[in-house]
Structures are given as C-alpha cells and as structure tokens.
C-alpha cells in the first residue's frame, strides 16, 4: 500500500478520486472548547475494493474519522482524497420514521432530484438484495433492528457508491442477526466491487470481515494488521484465533 505524501503547508484540502481509493494525509481534528485533539495527524490509504476495519476504544476518534471521510465534518487540517460516489450506513440505521422502507431506500436518489418513479425502479434491486421486497410498504417502527439496518444498507447502495462507510452498523443487533448481516455485507462487497471502511469496537468482527484491521488509540493510528485468511473465515480456526489474540494484545497494551 502506497501512502501519499502531503505537504505540511496544505492546511485543508478535499479532492475527488476517480477510483474507489481513499487517501488521508495528516488529518487533524480539534473541536472548539476541547483541549485535546480528537485526531492527531492521521495518514491512511485504502485501496479500491479493499475492506478495512477501524477498531479502537470509545472516544479514540474512529467515528470522527469516518464522518470526515463522508464529508459530514471538516478536518481542522489535512488532506482527504475520496471518490464522490460515497455512501454511509449509520449505527442507528438512521431511517426517517415518516417514510416507508421503499421511500427510505430511495431517499438518496430522490434527494439528488430523481423522480419517485425513477428512484423506485433503481432502488428495487437493492431492496430485493437485502431481502426486504415484501416489506417495501412498511414503516421503520414495524421492522426489527436487523431489518432496519438492512434498509440502511439498501439506501446506501442505491446511490451506487464506490465507497461504503459503515459506523458500527451491527452494534445494537443480536448475534444471529449480526452473523446474517456479516454474510450479506461480504456478498455485497464482492458483488458490487466496493471499497469498504467500517468502524467496529469488536475485534472478532473486524478480523472476521476485513482485509486489514487498523487500530486507533487517542486520535492516532497505533498499528495495522493484515488479515490474510481466506473467506469464509472459520472463527474457531487456529489462525483466526491467533490473529484475534494479536490484535487484542495491541488493543489492551
């Protein structure tokens, strides 16, 4: 992985990459009224179609980093290069309660100015992909937690992103639903040829899904772990267990 070198004199820049690559150079984030920096000079490169998982203790800045990449927050200084075709799945699902499953899923398209008819046509395959075709007319309060998160994934995919960002998307779900969604996510990642950057607080989840696990602590990247295990990964296998232990040791060091 080749890291971009960024000039110290670039205070802030955000550029578009044509591929699914993400490159961050010297990204700092300082909130007003907070003495410590939330992000302390993050350098990170994610290759097209790579699956990277950011892990770290609460408050280490991983969600802030994701929000900066998504364009929801600006870095204080540093450079961000990312494709315009980028979408995000939120921890809470973040569905609009007054819209049906179908309307939520096509929200990104209607927000971009597409007609409801056109947006519905384009969204239909993604609703089917996440297995919610029969629930298209239901409202979020009528769905289970897993179904809501599936709608969030369909909404993110419907805009046909090159990069999919996920902010702890499975943290509020039961183990069975989480396992099912892990499989769905891996299938979608491969079929859609997406670059995936996911935030998680679970080491096993990160090792199970990602090509690479990036450990963050105190606003900085502490260590990066490549995961050379083939899919589907056997979570009770020795290699998997050893890698989890290695990441765990660094996490708690």
């Amino acid at each position, binding site marked *: 992985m080749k890291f971009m070198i960024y000039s110290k004199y670039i205070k802030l820049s955000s550029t578009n990459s044509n591929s699914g690559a993400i490159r961050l150079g010297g990204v700092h984030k300082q909130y007003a009224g907070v003495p410590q920096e939330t992000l302390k000079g993050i350098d990170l490169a994610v290759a097209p179609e790579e699956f990277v998982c950011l892990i770290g203790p609460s408050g280490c800045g991983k969600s802030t980093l994701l*929000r900066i990449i*998504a*364009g*929801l927050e600006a870095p204080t200084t540093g450079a961000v290069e990312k494709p315009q075709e980028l*979408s*995000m799945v*939120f*921890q*809470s699902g*973040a569905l*609009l*309660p*007054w*819209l*049906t499953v179908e*309307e939520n899923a096509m*929200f*990104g398209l209607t*927000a*971009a100015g597409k007609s409801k008819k056109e947006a519905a046509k384009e969204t239909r395959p993604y609703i089917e992909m996440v297995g919610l075709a029969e629930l298209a007319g239901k*409202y*979020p*309060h009528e769905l289970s937690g897993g179904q809501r998160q599936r709608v969030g994934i369909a909404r993110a995919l419907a*805009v046909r992103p090159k990069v999919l960002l996920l902010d702890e998307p499975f943290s509020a779900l039961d183990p069975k639903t989480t396992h099912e969604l892990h499989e769905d996510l891996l299938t979608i990642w491969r079929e859609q040829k997406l670059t995936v950057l996911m935030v998680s607080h679970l080491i096993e989840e990160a090792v199970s899904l990602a090509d690479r696990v990036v450990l963050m602590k105190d606003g900085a990247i502490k260590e990066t772990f490549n995961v050379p295990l083939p899919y589907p990964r056997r979570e009770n296998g020795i290699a998997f267990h050893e890698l989890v232990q290695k990441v765990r040791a660094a996490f708690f060091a």
Partner: protein
Amino acid sequence: MVSYPRSIRQSLYTLVLVPLLAVVAAVLLLQHFTAAVAPSHITIGMLAYALSATFIRLLIAYALALVCALPLSFWVTHSTSAERVLLPLFDVIQSVPVLAFFPVIIVFFAHYGLYSGAAIFILFVSMLWSIVFSLVGGLHSIPQDIKSVGALFGLRGFAYIDEILLPSIFPYLITGSLLAFAGGWNIVTVAEVLHTYLPGATASSDIVGIGSILVHAAASGDEQTFGIALVVLIATIALINLFVWQRLLKYAERYKFE
C-alpha cells in the same frame, strides 16, 4: 404512502400561501363581525355567528403565529451563538403577560378602525411562544445521524428544511399548536371586549364573538345566555380536541424517532 408535502413548492404553499390567503379572506369576512351582540337578542343563529367569528380570529392568529414561529425556531437553533443570545431573550418576552400589551395595542389598532385586528394581534402573541418553544425543543431532539443523512445525500437550505427538519418536528408542531389554541381560547374572552381598554369607549366598541357574548351576559346578569354560550364554547373546544387534535397527535406518532 407519505401524505406529508415533500417538495419545497408544496411546503411553501402549505405553510405560507394558505395561511396568508386565509388571512386576507378572513379579514374581508371579519368586516361583517364588528358590533357586539346584545345578550337579550341572542339566538342560536347569533351564537353560531359569534362562534364562527371567534374561531376565524383564532385561525388567523394561529396562521400568523405559525408563519413567524417556523423561521424564528430555525433561526434560534441554527447556531449555538444565536441560541445563547436569542433563547433567553425570547424567554423574557414570553414571560411578560400578553394582556399587559393590550391597552397599547388596542389604541393603535382602534386608530385605524381595526378592532378585530387588535384581538387577532393579542391572540397571535399569546399563541406564538407556545409554538416557538415547542419547535425549538423538537429541533434539539433530532438525532445527529438523521441530520447526517440529509447532509450525506446533499440536501441543503430549503431542501434540507423540507425533507428533514419539518417532518422531524411535526409531532412538536402539533403539541405546540394544541397548546397555542388552548392559550388562544383563554385569551379570547378578554380580546373581544375592547371597551374596557379604550378610553371613553362603550360596549358598542366590542367585537362580535363568543368571548364578548360571555362577558356581556355575565355583566348584565343574563344567566341563561351565559350558560348557553358557555356550553357552546366547551362543546366546541371538546369537539375540536376530539376530531382534530387527538387525530393529529395520533398521526404524528409516525414522525417520532424511537
């Protein structure tokens, strides 16, 4: 399917044009509701006429309050610095009893012969703050992730207000409106009896409405008229609550975040 107006044009039509047209139509209509009705001449038809006049005044005041409350609440919550200055200021203004303004307001409106205008203005002031503070509470309660969804998909300005903010605060708008109407019904008895605030005025300066009928009937000892007017007023409020507010509150459940 969604029945909420989703485009900017629809929202402007619903929230601005309709209330403004209602104001113009109602002001023309209210020219007929000028002189108060003497209690001894009260008939059921006159009661209905007076109730309609009062209700139209409340609707106009509400429409004006809504048109002002929405931008005010968006303005207050737009930035923390604006909120730090404006919210305490609004709190002080709304704490001043609305009737304290009334003598000054009446003199101003009476100068131009707009007696109903004085009543509407006082109702407007009494309704405004219930809606503003309710909407400010609603805007604060929108989850950060929901705001992020709008930003992520490129919604800005009016589109963001239309697609994210307005539906998000809809339950708070209903609650605030309910409180505003409750306050309006409270004030209406005073707002229609103008002569007590106008130097040298008589009961003929009062405006027709259920409030002025109640006050005149009480003042002249006409217990029968007072009783009938009171029952009509209570029944109207109860029916509006049952068929409008309760239904809207139930409908607004769909707009609430879990």
